[in-house]
């Protein structure tokens, strides 16, 4: 029986610590092997990603606009402008509201449905395709049309609410509700985390459940003591990735509000505002500054998550 060992957490800190501790004992050959394996990523990163990233950081301190070649160094003016920018403040509010609802809702739906579909019952192929279907509608112009119909005053959502005896709303025009059309769209498209959960569930050896059954565990106990601990690396992965994804969400917000963030900027997600500044108003310097503020915020949140993960994420790997 494989032991479930609580390893040191996978945080970036720890990765570094391991390598520090082991430095003396690790042979030079391992360095070569390591770099050999990551070389595809490293080469492409150095060639095509590093320079653009550095350039964008530099631009954050200029008034560069994308149409002209010349620009001036403006110091921290772009960052200071953010503090006075009313739309910037609105976009930060909208983004945090969006992320804080989308991530937990999307993940719990995805996990619940993945467990429901992790079965050998007949028809499960069909259900999986059906649940994945909304996730492949994507960023086409037709989604905007569809969405307006679904959330319109006479749309299917209000009809459904009426059947349930609940209040109906003007989803698209009401500043307090409009963000919900985006949240529901994101939650609806839970196909990708669902599939990852499904793959994670598949990786759990079935013997573990058999042993648990012999020990007299009921369904909930199996979930609590077998499924959940073994799935934590995947839950952790989904949490990090879905958060980053939600912070960066652009296409849906762009399509649903026609790029404007209406009403009253309540659907003006951060990336949407950034895009508008860079490509519609040509303020690339300001947009670059916005981008790096966002990077710092996400990086900080990710770091905290990695640090916290040592308390709840379990790895099979015995690292000592």
């Amino acid at each position: 029986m494989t032991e479930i060992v609580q390893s040191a957490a996978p945080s970036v800190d720890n990765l570094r610590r391991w390598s520090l501790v082991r430095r003396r004992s690790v042979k030079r050959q391992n360095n070569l092997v390591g770099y050999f394996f990551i070389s595809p990523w490293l080469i492409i990163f150095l060639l095509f990603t590093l320079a653009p990233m550095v350039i964008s950081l530099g631009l954050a301190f200029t008034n560069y606009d994308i149409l002209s070649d010349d620009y001036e160094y403006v110091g921290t003016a772009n960052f200071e402008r953010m503090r006075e920018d009313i739309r910037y403040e609105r976009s930060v509010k909208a983004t945090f509201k969006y992320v804080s609802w989308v991530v937990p809702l999307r993940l719990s739906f995805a996990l619940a449905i993945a467990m429901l579909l992790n079965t050998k019952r007949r028809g499960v192929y069909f259900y999986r395709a059906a649940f994945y279907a909304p996730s492949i509608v994507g960023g086409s112009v037709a989604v905007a049309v569809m969405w307006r119909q679904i959330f319109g005053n006479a749309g299917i959502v209000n009809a459904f609410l009426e059947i349930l005896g609940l209040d109906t709303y003007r989803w698209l025009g009401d500043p307090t509700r409009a963000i919900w059309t985006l949240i529901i769209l994101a939650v609806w498209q839970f196909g990708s985390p669902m599939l990852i959960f499904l793959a994670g569930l598949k990786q759990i050896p079935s013997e573990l459940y058999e042993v648990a059954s012999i020990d007299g565990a009921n369904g909930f106990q199996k979930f609590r003591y077998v499924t959940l601990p073994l799935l934590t690396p995947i839950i952790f992965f989904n949490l990090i990735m879905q958060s980053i994804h939600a912070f960066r969400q652009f296409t849906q917000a762009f399509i649903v509000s026609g790029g404007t963030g209406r009403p009253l900027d309540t659907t003006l997600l951060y990336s949407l505002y950034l895009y508008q500044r860079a490509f519609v108003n040509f303020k690339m310097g300001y947009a670059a500054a916005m981008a790096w503020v966002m990077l710092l915020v996400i990086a900080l949140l990710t770091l905290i998550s990695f640090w916290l993960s040592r308390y709840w994420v379990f790895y099979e790997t015995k690292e000592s």
Partner: protein
Amino acid sequence: MTQSIQSLRFNKQIKDTRNSLIYHLAVALIAVVMLYPILWMFASSLKARDEIWTNVNSLVPEEVHLENYENGWQGFGGITFLTFYKNSFIYAGLGTLFQVSTSAFIAYGFSRVQFRGRGMWFSIMLLTLMLPTQVLIIPQYIIFSKLDWINTFYPLLIPRLGGEVFFIFMIVQFIRGIPIDLDEAAAIDGCSKVGIFFRIILPQLKPAIITAAIFSFYWTWDDFLAPLVYLTDPNLYTVSVALRAFSDPSGMTDWGAIFAMLSLSLVPVFIVFIVFQRYLTEGISTTGLKG
């Protein structure tokens, strides 16, 4: 005695059937809600131009207009969707192949090999994911245009040889779920790291790699920003770029044709999903896993 056992069995059967019924009822109900947008889109692709707007909520067209598909397929000025599909298949097919194969390889390096700078590179890799692409487009475009790669598939495909951070991180997490005893046993048997990767780890990663392949194909198929910027010759347009060129907010738009081509564009993604998900059914073999 025998009778009561039989009735017990009978009861169990009833219970199973009842559970099964509840299961299917519940799941099917959710499935209908989930499928509504697709069905709506498909129904709209069969409706007459004005019916799309007058008979909005109905999923059944009053009259089936298959000519929407014919009109849409014509594309623009003699360039039909055949061309766009060919381009999309090149992009999505090769893109997926490149991205997924290298991602697993890279992930193994990050998760199972100790080397100097591992933590740093992994952090940097995650950081690249956090910067909005909108500010990278311009510098990247300048690099690729200096390389004279505009209107070729290189700017779309070559970067994919470096894997995709999402998949690398995902596969790292999956590898960490695989007991290291196996590696160690193989290492004692004289297996090299490369050998361990191909013989021990890769077979265990099947669910993860299939998942990555499904995503990669769909994301590439749906991607429009990179093809929009780098493939400007209409003979190189992908399906997603062509679909967006159909409509103009102020102009006349043949929505029937758009919905028809949109419905059609979902077919390859569906096929890939259905073909690949079959391999998701079996859990991985645990033989030899017991340490």
